[in-house]
């Protein structure tokens, strides 16, 4: 299958998966007892951040691979993944904020996980700003790769420092050690949405990388 047709197929696949996910969120999932309908935001919130983690992982991969191989396609991968990662991190923060207002009574609180996610967003917005301000493609790729690597190495350090500084968020539901306070069917719905978001991410990524290739040729 040619590349364009593949991308288009991926896009439609993502749309179908998102429809299934939405049907599960609103049709299958029951109304939560204490939080009410607002709990359904979780089905958007958790897959978004997991997708963002995937994106930032790819930024690191693209950055290291670029410095080692100096092939522009790795830089395109890092740049595209960073943009989409920032988008999904922003969705996570905004959706969490909309959930937090009725549930915790505040839009924002300086809790450990909120703060570390916000710092994550700031680091990669800085990365995108740097990219926007360097005109020469080769220098831009080198500088961005260094920032991408340092930013990724900093994630665990930021995580621990902010965690010791403060904690109020519920424990991680899908990844990480410790108990996941979630019934099996709920995890199933999150999983369906996670798959849908990952497909959507893959579609965005391939489109964005196409654009990056075209920009370079122009």
């Amino acid at each position: 299958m040619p590349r364009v047709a593949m991308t288009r197929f991926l896009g439609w696949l993502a749309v179908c998966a998102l429809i299934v996910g939405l049907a599960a969120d609103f049709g299958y999932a029951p109304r939560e007892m204490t939080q009410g309908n607002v709990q359904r935001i979780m089905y958007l919130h958790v897959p978004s951040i997991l997708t963002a983690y995937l994106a930032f992982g790819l930024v690191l991969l693209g950055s290291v691979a670029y410095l080692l191989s100096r092939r522009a396609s790795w830089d395109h991968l890092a740049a595209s993944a960073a943009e989409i990662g920032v988008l999904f991190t922003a969705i996570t923060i905004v959706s969490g904020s909309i959930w937090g207002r009725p549930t915790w009574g505040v839009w924002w609180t300086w809790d450990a996980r909120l703060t570390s996610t916000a710092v994550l967003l700031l680091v990669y917005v800085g990365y995108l700003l740097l990219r926007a301000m360097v005109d020469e493609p080769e220098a831009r790729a080198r500088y961005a790769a260094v920032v991408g690597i340092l930013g990724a190495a900093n994630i665990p350090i930021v995580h621990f420092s902010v965690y010791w500084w403060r904690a109020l968020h519920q424990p991680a539901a899908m990844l990480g050690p410790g108990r996941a306070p979630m019934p099996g069917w709920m995890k199933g719905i999150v999983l369906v949405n996670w798959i849908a978001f990952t497909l959507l991410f893959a579609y965005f990524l391939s489109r964005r990388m196409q654009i990056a290739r075209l920009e370079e040729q122009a």
Partner: protein
Amino acid sequence: MPYTRRALAVLWKDLLTERRSKESLNALLFFTLLLLFIFQFALGPDRDRLRVALPGLLWLGLILAGLLGLGRTFVIERDNDCWEGLRLTPGDKSAIYLGKLLGNFTLMVVVEVLLLALFAVFYDVALGPALPNLGIVLLLGTIGLAAVGTLFGAMTAQLRARELLFPVLLLPAQVPILLATVSLTEATLLGQPLGEVSHWLKLLAGADVVYVVIGIMTFEFILDA
């Protein structure tokens, strides 16, 4: 020339230039003095309030001074094609990074000593018993600040929007250093032994190692072209 000698040569060159021109140091010392006044005006004359905010203010002052000072080390290399000279240095380019890092570290330590003395005088803080522990915290925090600052300073020195980009890149990366040093400074000023806050100390030391190692490994990619 072996690696360490090349690093020390860069350090010596920077210290000598700074001693003769006193460009960065004079401006930075004056800037920290100004900061002290600004903090005082922002918080008002209430001594208790100042004392509570003190660890945060101290590190905020250092980071602001770092934003001014660290970005400059590579900007001065742009004059008289010094940049080309540095790039022509034979051997591993990370020696240049280490030399610049040591120079920046020294500059920041001088600023810190002055800032601490000014804090003690103007805000009436009894630093005496906390001084040895505070010294350890300051040195560890400065390594982290200078390591990332030197790396990003080398990068942004070559860009048109460097005054804007340098803080935008450096500040998010300094979040762990700021959280750790403020917590440690708080603890030391309260007279707690460092053993009670050893997790912060380990985090700070770990962050220093990670930043310096990444700086050494990636510096040549910033320099070449």
